[in-house]
């Protein structure tokens, strides 16, 4: 991990990001990078600014200062749906599925950025529209197989248990076939077994599809086991940025988690 990194190995780089809401500073001069093909963890106590960071990367928040470089290019002011088209997908801390739609439709919606059939072929359901639908269905079925959710293919997601919903949400993000996958607490509220399943999926996604992953997670065991590098935030500042082992032994990080007072 310590060897020199070539410039084009970096998929995403944030430089000197500062974000504040009115008088409240959410992020202060944060810089870090995400390399191609790695699993990058972002950790920190509650309110540290982790989700804000993801929202900045997604384009929901626009930082007052700083630059975001994605895939070697400086990113200008962008809306979330434009960011999606660049190749960044995401799951949410609180499940944000389309509750009225089936699992299949949720995943198909994940592929919308790759679908282009025009209104007139949609209307008649012939030609490009139908071909496209079949082609993307095949891709989605691959993801359904991968996540082992065949049996709930046609079930409305609102009826599914929590762990399954989390899995479908991962599936929807996977369906976009993005370069970078942001996971906001993918294992929150899961039991041990579900967590293990989810870890396996995250690692498999990383290894099989080569997707770069950035995840926020509170379960330190999980973070230490699956991530290549960890960045630690606290009160909007970057505390540490190194390998899991170094982070584990960093006194500042331990203080932040155990709650030593800030002067």
């Amino acid at each position, binding site marked *: 991990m310590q060897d020199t990194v070539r410039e084009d190995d970096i998929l995403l780089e944030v430089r000197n990001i500062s974000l504040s809401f009115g008088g409240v500073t959410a992020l202060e001069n944060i810089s870090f990078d995400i390399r191609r093909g790695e699993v990058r963890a972002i950790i920190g106590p509650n309110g540290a600014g982790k989700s804000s960071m993801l929202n900045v990367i997604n384009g929901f928040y626009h930082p007052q200062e700083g630059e975001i470089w994605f895939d070697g290019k400086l990113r200008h002011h962008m809306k*979330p749906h434009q960011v999606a088209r660049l190749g960044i997908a995401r799951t949410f801390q609180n499940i944000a599925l*389309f509750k009225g739609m089936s699992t299949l439709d949720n995943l198909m919606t994940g592929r*919308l950025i790759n679908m282009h059939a025009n209104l007139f072929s949609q209307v*008649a*359901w012939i030609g490009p529209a139908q071909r496209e*639908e079949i082609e993307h269905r095949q891709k989605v079925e691959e993801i359904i197989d991968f996540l082992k959710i065949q049996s709930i293919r046609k079930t409305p997601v609102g009826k599914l248990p929590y762990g399954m919903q989390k899995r479908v949400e991962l599936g929807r993000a996977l369906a976009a076939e993005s370069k970078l996958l942001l996971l906001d607490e993918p294992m929150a509220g899961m039991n041990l077994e579900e967590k293990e399943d989810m870890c396996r999926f995250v690692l498999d996604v990383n290894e099989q599809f080569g997707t770069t992953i950035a995840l926020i997670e509170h379960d330190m065991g999980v973070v230490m086991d699956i991530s290549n590098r960890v960045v630690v935030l606290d009160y909007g500042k970057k505390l540490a940025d190194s390998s899991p082992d170094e982070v584990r032994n960093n006194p500042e990080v331990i203080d932040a988690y155990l709650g030593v007072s800030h002067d």
Partner: protein
Amino acid sequence: MFYRESGDFKTSYVQDQQIFPILQDRVFVAVVIAFAFLVVPFLINDYWEKSVLLPVLIWSLAAIGLNILTGYCGQVSLGTGGFMAVGAYASYKFTTAFPELNLFIVVLLSGGVTAMVGILFGLPSLRIKGFYLAVATLASQFFLVWLFNKVPWFYNYSASGQINAPERLIAGITITGPNAPPWATYLFCLIFVVVLALIAKNLTRGRFGRSWMAIRDMDIAAEIIGVAPLKAKLSAFSISSFYIGIAGALFFLVYLGAVEPTEAFGIDKSFLVLFMIIIGGLGSILGSFIGAAFMFLMPVLIKNIMVNGLGWSPDIVAHLIFMIVGGLIMFFLIVEPHGLAQLWRIAKEKLRLWPFPH
């Protein structure tokens, strides 16, 4: 020959993604359409045309239109009456300005004009949501009706301020005006309703439908996976208004024949269509038909039973109808808040395993 899904195995995605995946559904829809086209025109009389078939068809179309916007895309609108008025007045202006223009084209153009107006009044939806949007669309309802009352150009400076459908023929058959035969007006409407309903079904199960439903269910997540809210909402507004505009044009041209905007396209019509889709089922094309039939036919049925069957006086019955229909609406909303289409969906789910549910 039971109605059921089990045993109907799909071996390709094409089969699985058909418009009606269940065999019996396909047969049933085909039979209904064939019956409507081949049998009904020979049986139809003036009463069935004016009191039952035409209004149900036209209101179904308006309900499908509103359902696309409200049921599928989640944008509540109270402007339906106003948009129907746009369709009606557009068809009037087109057919009086170009008397030779085929009536099909007139109606489609009217839908197009309404779609434009719909996009215009849909712009606020990008900023405001829910009840606030409903109030904003209410403005369009009042503004449009006011416009058609106040600007004489729209009613060709007629003394009464009304618009009257001139007699128009297609292939030698009178479609509009008092001399139009019932079967001709019926078939004219039926063609629009069947084609547009099938189109709505196609649109809602494809790319457009998914982006609408994504916006409806969770707009933030929709944005994050690449749905542009602007495009999704405005496409829903325009397509919905296209349907509603066509319904308005048909309502004026073949059903009413003469129209005064405040009365024909008032706020009560907006509510009526909204109730139709709530009762029928939000986000369901079938529900649009069921809702329109329920809201329109129930009073007719009750009136027939009480006045003609029991011999009660019509004015008492008129009051009773309000109470009974109101009661029925509440009953159905309590039994099934997701609309009558949901009852059908549940029945279908039960039938999947019946008669061996364990």
